[in-house]
């Protein structure tokens, strides 16, 4: 928490997603492409098939341009962004897994050198030597996945590491093997989806044959991915399931993401069977793009889900998304969050009127922007919300407003109860200050609940994954800090909605 806070307009998590999702798509293509290109060339040599050779050669240019350039840069980009938006978390990961990353680097060096040699030596060296380079590329690329998979899965399911702190206990964690299976399938899908484009350039008599060849690999990848996904879900603890599974998931958006991912996979498989296996003539640039997008949809959805179900942690049961470690909750409560977060504390000391905002930046800004992604302003109760619920004009809009603005926190009351508790619409219009006072009390009450969660975390057994499902807000970090800091934050949050309320109220609350 002691780092400066970068106020990124779109939100740190969205920025990370913008860099990480293209990277994982490209990097998985780089691995799967290694396998399919080496395999394609091997078959070409064995069968004396120039069309297969042409496919391997054309695909290797894509491999170089996409994976060694964009893949390498965006891979570094993940570190760059992580250092900017979650320095405490990336530091913790690097201090625990530096030798894991160093090992991955060795495989990466081999992978890059092999890729460059492979592409450069077409038509220049013997077939056997060229095949050797191609297979070495694939082995190195896959081994880099074997390593990084341990670090990525550790963040969600650290397993026995929480008790022992041992490198290997965290590395071979409960979701390691399911995730490796899933990613292996994704590698095949990504590679086949990319290679469809060079395959379409083959001569007419051979085009269909090459597309069918890729179709089998795509279908195999989709099935392995699906099996890996179900295995991954089964390996998650119940407290994580509670966030996105069941009749009433805690985070409905993650439940929707799960559906999106699985339907994307289904669509991708069906499309691949139709346009690659059954009717290759239907494969056109447009349909190939749709196929690729469907495959990306599954993988991107899975990655979003994997990141989302880790909430409220960056490293489950060890470090929260704002960089606060579970072990330091009691200490920060005593010292104050501004004492722990040196930069925010420095700013607050220079301008005491800004204290509430600095507490927000230190504790909340890692997930919430003011008006963009995960907007805090939209999450706060406003007079306009209350007016919309109370007025219910036109009929039905009140219930909708209740669902959108109230139900997430007031899940113990229904719309009619809520309408009954609120004053009438005219009364609210004539005395909005009353609702503001009510809302200020709600904000403070919520922060008190969030602080109470900290006590639950302090009392929890930290040698196993903490069950967050009974907590008030299982997807949010606890509030930490002194009573005065809590009040300053509540006042600041209140000011965020009260400043804009006259404008909203003018719209009649709807």
């Amino acid at each position, binding site marked *: 928490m002691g780092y400066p806070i970068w106020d990124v307009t779109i939100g740190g998590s969205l920025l990370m997603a913008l860099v990480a999702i293209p990277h994982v798509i490209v990097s998985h293509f780089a691995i799967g492409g290694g396998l399919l290109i080496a395999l394609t060339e091997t078959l070409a040599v064995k069968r004396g098939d120039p069309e297969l050779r042409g496919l391997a050669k054309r695909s290797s240019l894509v491999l170089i341009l996409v994976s060694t350039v964009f893949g390498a840069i965006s891979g570094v980009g993940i570190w760059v962004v992580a*250092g900017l938006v979650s320095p405490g978390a990336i530091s913790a990961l690097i201090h625990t897994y530096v030798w894991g990353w160093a*090992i991955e680097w060795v495989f990466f060096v081999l992978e*890059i050198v092999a890729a460059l040699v492979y592409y450069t030596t077409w038509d220049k060296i013997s077939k056997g030597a060229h095949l*050797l380079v191609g297979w070495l590329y694939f082995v190195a690329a896959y081994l880099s996945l074997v390593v990084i998979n341990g670090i990525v899965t550790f963040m969600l399911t650290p397993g026995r590491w929480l008790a022992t702190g041992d490198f290997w206990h965290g590395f071979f964690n409960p979701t390691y093997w399911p995730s490796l299976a899933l990613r292996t399938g994704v590698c095949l899908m990504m590679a086949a989806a990319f290679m469809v484009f060079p395959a379409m350039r083959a001569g007419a008599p051979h085009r269909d044959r090459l597309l069918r060849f890729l179709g089998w690999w795509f279908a195999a990848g989709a099935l392995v991915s699906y099996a890996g996904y179900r295995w991954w879900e089964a390996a998650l603890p119940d407290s994580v399931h509670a966030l996105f599974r069941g009749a009433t998931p805690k985070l409905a958006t993650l439940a929707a993401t799960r559906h999106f991912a699985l339907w994307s996979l289904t669509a991708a498989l069906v499309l691949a069977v139709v346009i690659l296996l059954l009717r290759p003539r239907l494969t056109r640039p447009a349909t190939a793009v749709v196929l690729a997008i469907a495959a990306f949809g599954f993988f991107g959805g899975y990655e979003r889900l994997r990141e989302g179900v880790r909430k409220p942690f960056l490293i489950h049961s060890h470090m929260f998304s704002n960089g606060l470690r579970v072990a330091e909750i009691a200490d920060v409560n005593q010292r104050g969050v501004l004492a722990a977060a*040196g930069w925010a504390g420095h700013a607050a000391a220079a301008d005491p009127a800004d204290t509430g905002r600095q507490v927000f930046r230190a504790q909340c800004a890692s997930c919430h922007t003011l008006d963009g992604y995960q907007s805090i302003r939209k999450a706060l109760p406003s007079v306009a919300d209350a007016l919309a619920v109370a007025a219910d004009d036109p009929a039905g809009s009140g219930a909708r407003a209740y669902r959108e603005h109230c139900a997430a926190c007031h899940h113990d009351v229904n719309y009619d109860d809520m309408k009954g508790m609120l004053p009438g619409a005219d009364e609210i219009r004539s005395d909005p200050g009353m609702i503001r006072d009510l809302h200020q009390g709600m904000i403070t009450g919520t922060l008190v609940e969030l602080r109470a969660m900290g006590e639950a975390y302090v009392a929890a057994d930290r040698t196993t994954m903490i069950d967050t499902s009974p907590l008030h807000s299982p997807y949010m970090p606890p509030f930490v800090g002194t009573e005065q800091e809590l009040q300053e934050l509540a006042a600041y949050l209140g000011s965020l909605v009260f400043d804009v309320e006259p404008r909203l109220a003018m719209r009649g609350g709807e």
Partner: protein
Amino acid sequence: MNPNLIPALDPAGLPGPPWLFHVLLVFTFFLHMLFMNLTLGGTLLAVIAHFRAGGRREDPRGALAGRLMAVNSYGISLTITTGIAPLLFIQVLYQQYFYTATILIAGVWLAMLLLLTLGYYAAYLYKFRGAPARGQGGGLWLFASAVMFLAIAMVHVAVHLLHSQPERWADVASGAACVLGDPTYFPRLLHFVLAGIGFAALVAAWWAVRQARAGVEVELNTRIAGFTWKWMLWTTILQVVDGFVLLLLLPRPLLIGFMQGGAATMIPLTLAILLGVGLLVMIARVTNPVASSGVVSGTLGAMVLTIAVMSITRHQLRVLSLAPATKLSEPVVVPQWFNFSLWVVLLLAGLATVGYMVRRVLDAPATGADAA
């Protein structure tokens, strides 16, 4: 310096003794420098050569530009790849300084990714689309690539200067542009740029001399060697001057720190200065590089050694700059010797595999139906 602005050490501790990470950081940075010099200096030299040739590939300088960028389309990959290791080790040793510096100039640090992507693809566009085998063209892509790489160098110099100056953080937080106001910023930047051009020129000269002596395109290679040798001479002269300027501009406590460091700091510093001056003498003595191939190879060896020694001196400068901050807290060491040993074994196996692969490739030339 406000100690409250320095984030705490990572409680996980160092997964090995500090000296090990210092050694790894310096060594991998040195490897990165070799490729980085080729990328930055090679692209800048290619731009100069290209425009001096009027964009014509038939001109030896135009051919030189093509050669440099042919190497660079692969060299950039290796620059990034070798850059990953020092980036990893700096995060182990100096994470609280490094992350803080990057956050303080977050916008430009993040923009580096875009600059790198554009610079890299511009280099490929020059190779595949821009530069014809004969005639003119490609200057725009080449120029774009050089501008991007120069901008990246500016960002890196800013971050590395800033991370070693916690006493300036509060000022920079209120205005990131004041990083450029540091009196050593531009001399440091110039030091990297001149080193890059000089090294790329030397590598190009060394290759041209080898080719000329092997009887391959003798006239072309002789002219390329002469052109690059002149550039090496002038950049080295400027480099020596800039090096002394940089030394004079260093804050007095740092200079005293170097003196008080004894042999550990004075030997690398002295050696770096002697090597710089020695290089100048070696280069100045050669009028026809093709006729002095031994000196050319020796100069290349001396240049590599200079880069290695300068990498050590640069690191020691950082250690001295950060000493007031680092002495406030000692990192806990939680060694992972097994994992370190595994890394060493895999590193050696990986290097052996690369060596085996390259040997197999060199031993298996083929053409026509026999070729892959």
